[in-house]
């Protein structure tokens, strides 16, 4: 028994990585500022009806199948090049449909550069009306109905490559909610497949996710930013997603790999593992979920995280900038098939 008793509220996860602003830094492609701000209301998408072109393209990520319609030829070519094996000329039968249209407005959100001395990296608003999600940022506004699987993506004129940013950022949001509703999670993590099993490394920015992939020579890298964790017949499995920074190559596989380990990264002077309690492990996982927490879906995320940590405990991996941490994982039987 406990003596003396202290009722203890433990805000363990108040580290910067769990704050809304920090989350907003993750999972996005940066964009230049707009000059005015427009918040699309419920009737906006019935007014924005002019397609960008006559082309279409299928997109598939696990069981999320979408057909983008109304693309200009250049849009389609760009998306084909970017998404590689995740796109096809012909959409999968029964795929949801997203009409890509001209925004009809100069832009949506306005970048608040240097507000209170903190530069804004990327801001995205999410509004739920029943099962209809509206997400909008600087250069795009999109909606997706999670019942009919139909949506619209309005793209405003912008500097650089607005189609690429708009499609990708909209897809990231839709994917995060899509998989959450199916018992999966889109996690801000890096993923490495060694001997057929996937190791997921997560944590806030600068915790070492990319470093870990660079220290995994010869292994299959699923990604160093976002990884899909979803349930399979034999438990949770990890998949690559095609979302990434501007210049990296698309993933070479869309295969799902059984989960070997979940590690919250901590840079340190030694390599060692610390077991986390299920409650802390779930909390750590939830702190690495883009989009869904700030959209009021924390309860659903907690349910999924609970199932994950029951199957695969989370450990804190303290590591140096050396591949030696793999020996540690292998000594624990976690690097073996």
């Amino acid at each position: 028994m406990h003596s003396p008793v202290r009722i203890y509220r433990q805000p363990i996860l108040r580290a910067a990585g769990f704050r809304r602003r920090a989350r907003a830094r993750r999972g996005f492609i940066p964009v230049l500022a707009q000059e005015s701000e427009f918040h699309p209301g419920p009737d906006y998408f019935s007014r924005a009806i002019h397609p960008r072109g006559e082309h279409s393209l299928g997109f598939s990520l696990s069981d999320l199948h979408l057909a983008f319609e109304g693309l200009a030829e250049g849009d389609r070519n760009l998306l084909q090049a970017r998404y590689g094996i995740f796109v096809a000329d012909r959409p999968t039968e029964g795929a949801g449909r997203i009409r890509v249209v001209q925004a009809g407005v100069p832009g949506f959100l306005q970048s608040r550069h240097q507000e209170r001395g903190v530069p804004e990296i990327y801001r995205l608003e999410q509004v739920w009306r029943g099962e209809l999600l509206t997400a909008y940022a600087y250069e795009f506004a999109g909606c997706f109905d999670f019942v009919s699987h139909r949506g619209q993506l309005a793209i405003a004129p912008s500097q650089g490559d607005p189609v690429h940013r708009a499609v990708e950022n909209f897809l990231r949001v839709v994917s995060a909610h899509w998989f959450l509703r199916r018992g999966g999670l889109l996690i801000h993590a890096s993923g490495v497949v060694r001997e057929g099993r996937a190791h997921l490394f997560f944590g806030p920015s600068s915790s070492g996710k990319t470093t870990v992939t660079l220290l995994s020579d010869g292994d299959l890298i699923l990604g160093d930013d976002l990884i899909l964790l979803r349930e399979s017949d034999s438990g949770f499995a990890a998949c690559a997603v095609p979302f990434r920074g501007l210049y990296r190559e698309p993933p070479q596989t869309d295969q799902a790999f059984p989960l070997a380990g979940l590690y919250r990264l901590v840079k340190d002077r030694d390599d060692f593992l610390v077991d986390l309690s299920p409650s802390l492990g779930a909390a750590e996982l939830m702190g690495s979920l883009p989009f869904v927490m700030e959209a009021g879906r924390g309860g659903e995320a907690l349910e999924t995280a609970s199932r994950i940590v029951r199957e695969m405990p989370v450990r804190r991996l303290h590591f140096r900038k050396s591949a030696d941490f793999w020996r540690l994982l292998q000594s624990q039987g976690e690097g073996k098939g």
Partner: protein
Amino acid sequence: MTESSAVGGAPRRHPTAGFRIFEGQATIVMPDGSFIHVLNEIGSRVWDLLNGQRTESEIVDRICAEFETSREVAEKDVREFLAALEANRMLG
């Protein structure tokens, strides 16, 4: 404690709070997702008891019955804990 969160002296968890208790330790998330709270064993037990039907005094009784502590300490700790929950808008 405010009157709204403890009507009749029976505090309750905020109805929109999502939580799971794993091996006696609670993980709590509020709808805005800004913070994830992890409680220790005793805080988790108090949280579990906050069903809007037990008074603060009854909760203290339960804690005294289940843990080795004096009533004086338990009263103080429960009161402080509830105040912290209230400050974080976790009661409703």
